[in-house]
């Protein structure tokens, strides 16, 4: 990260608003990008980004300036995104959240039959929020397990265990719906 040095982090921990502004401007995009991966909603991601920095500001005295600010911010953001997912089950039809598109465009693959897609999305949505986030980060976004572990505040083995449990649940649910991946 450019521009942010340990002295800025120390000034931030003492409540210096200019140092906080510098940190905010430096990391807002990164935090937003992390949250939108989890919540898939730009409006909610913006609100959660603000909330993340609000909590960061309130907890500034507990921050150790020798540690990574980005990792700390990511952990707070992940907790908030998880809370958001637990509170808000998707109300929009799944097709509006994941519209059909072309492969590689960030849109679902049009080659998958609509009913299979609907079943996969329903099975994914039926997972508990913690497993959904872990699956999204590990299997869809393919983030390193160590990074996911850090963001979720658990061990790498904890991430592996969640992925294992999620796969088992997804398979069971998909088999019930007649889909065998």
């Amino acid at each position: 990260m450019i521009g942010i040095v340990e002295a800025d982090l120390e000034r931030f921990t003492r409540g210096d608003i200019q140092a906080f502004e510098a940190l905010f401007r430096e990391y807002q995009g990164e935090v937003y990008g992390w949250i939108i991966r989890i919540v898939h909603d730009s409006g909610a991601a913006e609100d959660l980004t603000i909330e993340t920095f609000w909590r960061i500001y309130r907890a500034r005295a507990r921050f150790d300036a020798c540690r990574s600010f980005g990792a700390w911010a990511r952990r707070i953001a992940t907790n908030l995104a998880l809370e958001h997912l637990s509170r808000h089950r998707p109300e929009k039809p799944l097709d509006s959240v994941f519209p059909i598109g072309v492969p590689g465009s960030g849109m679902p693959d049009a080659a998958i039959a609509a009913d299979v897609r609907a079943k996969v999305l329903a099975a994914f949505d039926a997972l508990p929020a913690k497993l959904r986030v872990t699956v999204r980060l590990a299997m869809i976004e393919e983030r390193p397990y160590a990074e996911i572990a850090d963001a979720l505040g658990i061990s790498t083995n904890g991430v592996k265990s969640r992925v294992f449990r999620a796969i088992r649940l997804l398979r069971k649910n998909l088999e019930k719906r007649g889909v065998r991946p």
Partner: protein
Amino acid sequence: MNEPDEALKDLLRRAAPGPADRELKRDLWPEMRRRLERPPVQIPWEDWALAATLLLCLLLFPETIPAVLYLL
């Protein structure tokens, strides 16, 4: 991850890929600034007094707890 898990992963990625646009479109600092400047919520002393009275009543007359819960 073994081979069948890779198939499931592939299915998931094709059905529900990550959002294509992950860029923040606007600067959120003005909103953050407003949030920082918002005065903290102050609870009037009357509310504290009312809560304390209610707590005291519940401690002195615990048999009223079901009635209070019913009214809530």
